[in-house]
């Protein structure tokens, strides 16, 4: 009987109008800048734009050249090595430090600040200091040699084979503090009872961490992962500050390739092609993950 009353459903778009208005900046940034910018980049990667973007379609030429370039291949290899190692070491060091800090230690604040302070320094500086410390003449190698160990060799920044590890050392120095903080916060969120249960079960501390606690900290690891991974993909300043990509091309990275070709070589098309490849790789990894993480299921 009451069904006869018209439901008078109002326009869906107008409901909670304020929230939609408030989301406009986010939507604009996402759509215009990130999506629009990306599409623009992709489109122009098919042109032979030089100094200025010009719509002069050349098909896949830029990509062919890109993949024929030995510097690009080196860059990709470097990023892979650097990325994987930096991901592993950041997480491992960050986690181990956090686990140590979580042992109800004294001077926790002091230690935390010490581990965190490199994060406050810019890459320009980080690169410089480490360039110094790793300088074979007056850095660590020099000191050790002057102590009488003449054959000691530690010159990562000047040895093409290991230069990427030299960069890694500086990157870890800068970034692990933040990871440690995030991990520590995650550890503090673990139910006290889990620890107790594990103790009663007689499970040694390290096994509890590995088999019980780490799997429980998934969300923390995800936030950290996004943070670290986005930093890795974008790594540029640190390399420039430490080695400018040298010796030779040994420490080149994709972001630097993009930058150099866009601005030094004044070949926007090439730079865009390289960045499109980077984005494509990222998208292949991220989109399924983002869908699972943020898209599909709703929170209760």
């Amino acid at each position, binding site marked *: 009987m009451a069904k006869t009353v018209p439901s008078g459903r109002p326009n869906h778009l107008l409901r909670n109008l304020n929230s939609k208005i408030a989301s406009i900046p986010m939507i604009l940034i996402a759509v215009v800048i990130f999506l629009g910018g990306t599409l623009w*980049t992709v489109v122009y990667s098919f042109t032979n734009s030089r100094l200025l973007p010009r719509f002069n379609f050349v098909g896949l030429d830029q990509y062919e050249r890109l993949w024929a370039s030995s510097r690009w291949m080196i860059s990709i290899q470097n990023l892979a090595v650097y990325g994987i190692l930096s991901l592993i070491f950041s997480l491992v060091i960050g986690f181990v430090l956090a686990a140590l800090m979580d042992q109800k230690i004294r001077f926790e604040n002091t230690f935390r600040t010490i581990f965190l302070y490199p994060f406050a320094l810019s890459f320009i500086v980080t690169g410089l200091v480490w360039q110094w410390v790793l300088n074979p003449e007056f850095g660590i190698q020099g000191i050790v040699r002057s102590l009488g160990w003449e054959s000691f060799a530690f010159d990562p920044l000047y040895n093409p084979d290991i230069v990427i590890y030299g960069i890694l050392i500086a990157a870890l120095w800068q970034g692990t503090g933040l990871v440690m903080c995030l991990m520590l916060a995650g550890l503090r969120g673990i139910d006290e009872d889990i620890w107790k249960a594990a103790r009663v079960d007689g499970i040694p501390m390290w096994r509890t961490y590995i088999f019980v606690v780490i799997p429980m900290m998934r969300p923390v690891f995800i936030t950290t992962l996004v943070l670290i991974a986005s930093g890795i993909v974008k790594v540029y300043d640190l390399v420039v500050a430490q080695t400018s990509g040298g010796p030779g091309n040994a420490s080149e990275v994709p972001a630097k390739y993009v930058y150099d070709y866009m601005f030094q070589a004044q070949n926007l098309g090439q730079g865009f092609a390289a960045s499109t490849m980077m984005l494509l790789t990222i998208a292949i990894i991220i989109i399924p993950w983002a869908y699972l993480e943020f898209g599909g299921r709703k929170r209760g």
Partner: protein
Amino acid sequence: MADVSTLNTTVAGIDAVSRGLASGPSGRKPKRVLSRRNIVLYGTLTVAALYYLLPLYVMVVTSLKGMPEVRLGNIFAPPMEITFEPWVKAWAQACTGLNCDGLSRGFWNSVRILVPSVVVSIAVASVSGYALANWRFKGAELFFSILIIGAFIPYQVMIYPIVIVLRELGIYGTLTGLVIVHTIFGMPILTLLFRNYFASLPVELFKAARIDGAGFWQIYFRIMLPMSLPIFVVAMILQVTGIWNDFLFGVVFTRPDTYPMTVQLNNIVNSVQGVKEYNVNMAATLLTGAVPLIVYFVSGRLFVRGIAAGAVKG
């Protein structure tokens, strides 16, 4: 043993609970200060701390040396003669092209850039995070996913599109433009942070406020904001560090009279005049890092607490 048995005979009380202690371990287990656990624990932490402190030590020590001493080459040796000359030079005398007034020139510019950029970027991101967490609407998660992918785009790639957008808006080269740029690039991570934080607050609060008749902004300002101080501190630390140390946008989107401190720092570090003046470089570095460092020292506790309060719960 005798005293034990006498103690044991003083049986009293409710349930014939025998009072008194038997021999053997009792009370707190005695702990040696130098137990193996402590040695490993503090040992590892100290070694790690040394690794983190080493570059800082080098920087401080070098910045207090004169150039002749620096040229001696031992970067780890403490200064034989402490001089503050490099600090003075870095702050007020170092040259960039024709301007010889060191970092001081950029300091206030940096502050002028920092404050509005931090405020605006955090404001926009927190509101977006709030809208995403509490006012989910169709497509919101899609935009959010785009943002997250955006976190992975190298900044350099975005310079052209942004230059074009700002030019079309007519705000290229203005402070407004720069603030917008910082807001854009702060968006992905900050929104993730705020979204996860707000999502971890009890939904009932939000519902209760809606029943009380509060609207979008009222709930944000009067309910959510006062509860989210820690996460705002976290966001602030991230942004202060990021914006203060930014070089690329600072130099691309401003003019020389509004260049931030990092441009000066870059100029000092990268202008090589004969031999690099390492002591001045180090002093400049330390001076530039001072502001974020102070922010850390002041809010270090809140930092961890803020994240613990739910910022990282996915």
